[in-house]
């Protein structure tokens, strides 16, 4: 365990070293957040409320969605890809430490660094230029945070499972783009699910993506409470278990495959 906490700490330091990257990311994320909010404002020119949601809630949704995207940053797919491309994966897998745990520790460290470097400035800028993202009710803070933590784990597992594609011959850089765009559309990070047609919504709720953004965001703006909240968190837990299981199996298989090929 000690080694992983060391990796985590080192990653925090490493993430903080590149000043230019840090500022660059903040500026870029701010621009994205602002453009999205203008997009909503333009759309709401003709309407007070759409689907029972008013502009204020949509702006809060935008700010908080940007914040969540900071927390849901992963590097594990790239790490696996690079390791496979460079051919170091065999060595990595046979090390006495679990390489995936190392990747997780790195991602965790990175997110901790991002909390200070990116999250705070983004909330600050959001408050000034868009609106103060007020929580719907004090009681939902805890539920929001729980849901967000679960979303972090689900997101990481999805990324790691996705990263296993690197063991096949397919070009990962393209697939990573596919994943990013699909998650953006299907998770409700940009456009909330309630704007989608009924049938599509039902289909999407069967996938894990909506539990990354849509659920914590709905809790935050107070559109999800009571039974639907309990139901949502339960589904998150189920996904967590299912994805952990899939990940475990794939990891074992990958190790075996590499042993046979590379041994």
């Amino acid at each position: 365990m000690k080694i992983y906490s060391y990796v985590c700490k080192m990653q925090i330091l490493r993430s903080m070293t590149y000043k230019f990257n840090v500022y660059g990311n903040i500026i870029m994320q701010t621009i994205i957040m602002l453009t999205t909010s203008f997009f909503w404002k333009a759309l709401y020119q003709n309407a007070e409320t759409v689907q029972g949601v008013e502009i204020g809630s949509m702006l809060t949704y935008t700010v908080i969605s940007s914040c969540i995207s900071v927390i849901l940053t992963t590097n594990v797919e790239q790490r696996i890809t690079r390791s496979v491309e460079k051919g170091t994966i065999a060595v990595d897998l046979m090390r006495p430490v679990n390489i995936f745990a190392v990747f997780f520790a790195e991602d965790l460290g990175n997110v901790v660094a991002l909390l200070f470097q990116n999250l705070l400035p983004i909330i600050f800028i959001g408050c000034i230029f868009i609106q103060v993202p007020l929580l719907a009710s004090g009681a939902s803070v805890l539920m929001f945070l729980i849901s967000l933590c679960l979303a972090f784990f689900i997101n990481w597992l999805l990324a790691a499972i996705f990263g296993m594609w690197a063991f096949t011959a397919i070009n990962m850089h393209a697939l990573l783009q596919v994943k990013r765009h699909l998650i953006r559309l299907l998770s409700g990070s940009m456009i909330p699910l309630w704007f989608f047609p009924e049938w599509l919504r039902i289909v999407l709720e069967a996938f894990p993506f909506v539990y990354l953004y849509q659920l914590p965001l709905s809790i935050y703006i107070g559109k999800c409470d009571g039974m639907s909240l309990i139901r949502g968190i339960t589904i998150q837990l189920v996904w967590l278990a299912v994805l952990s299981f899939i990940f475990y199996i794939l990891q074992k298989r990958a190790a075996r495959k590499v042993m046979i090929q590379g041994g």
Partner: protein
Amino acid sequence: MIEVKNICKSYNVIQKGEGFRGALKGLISRESEKVQAVKNLSFHIQPGEIVGFIGPNGAGKSTTIKMMSGILTPSSGEILINGRDIHKYRKQVVQDIGVVFGQRSQLDWDLRLGESFELLRHIYRIDKAKYEETLNIMDQILEIKPLLSKPVRQMSLGQRVKGDLVAAMLHAPSVLFLDEPTIGLDVGAKYSLRKFVKEVNEERNTTVILTTHDLGDIEQLCDRIIIINNGELIEDGNLEEIVDRIAPYKTLVVEYYDEKAPEHARCELFFHEANVAKYRFMKKDITAAALIQALSAEAQIKDVSIEEAGIDDIIRIAYGQLKE
């Protein structure tokens, strides 16, 4: 003809703090320090010379050769190749130079070697007949033709260096820069590289400038060496001259029949173990023959050999001088 006039090069090196506090501090302000990699270097190189740059790691020899080949811009000073400033007339001047950097290849990793040559042929506007001719000559020295249809990524390091050497010579440059060309090469590949350098120098009168850590390269190739340390020129001249000047001694190794080794006033007995003794003597003080004769009068000699001061002695002495 290469003229290097008072070139300097300094880098900004960013200072990074330690631990969390350093990292946090680094986000706000960063201190940078100016490091002088090359200090006021000047020298001339005549056409057809083979010049070796030697010096310890970080001495500035790579920086110098990169400035001479147009890659790095000097902070001050100028470099003229065939009378023209390489940084002002880069495109014209580089038409007449070839560059091989041992660490990095200019060949296309994914494609067959011939494809990289074809690109160069078009970049340097070499006509087909001339290209074929050069390739034939290169084939005689390096046996390059069988490699033409091999993907570069499947080549051994030695084969890749051959490819890079030919690539640098396709446009028949009058100056060839080699930065650590023999690094990591096996004996066979080193041999063909040295043969290549000698032949292009003799046949085409190509000026060759190389940096190396390999003393074999220096001994076998260079008529002239330039020793650099801490960005400054320490020695510049003919190998033998430098040896005569800073290490004007020879070592006589004598094996006696018994363990007693006689001494002599005009030399220094600096090593004596069992029946082997080593004497260091100045060439101006005594000749080897006279010394042997004197020694054999006092003890019975079984075998003798004479060692000249080698290039490594020179380097050791040259660096040592600087430390004092």
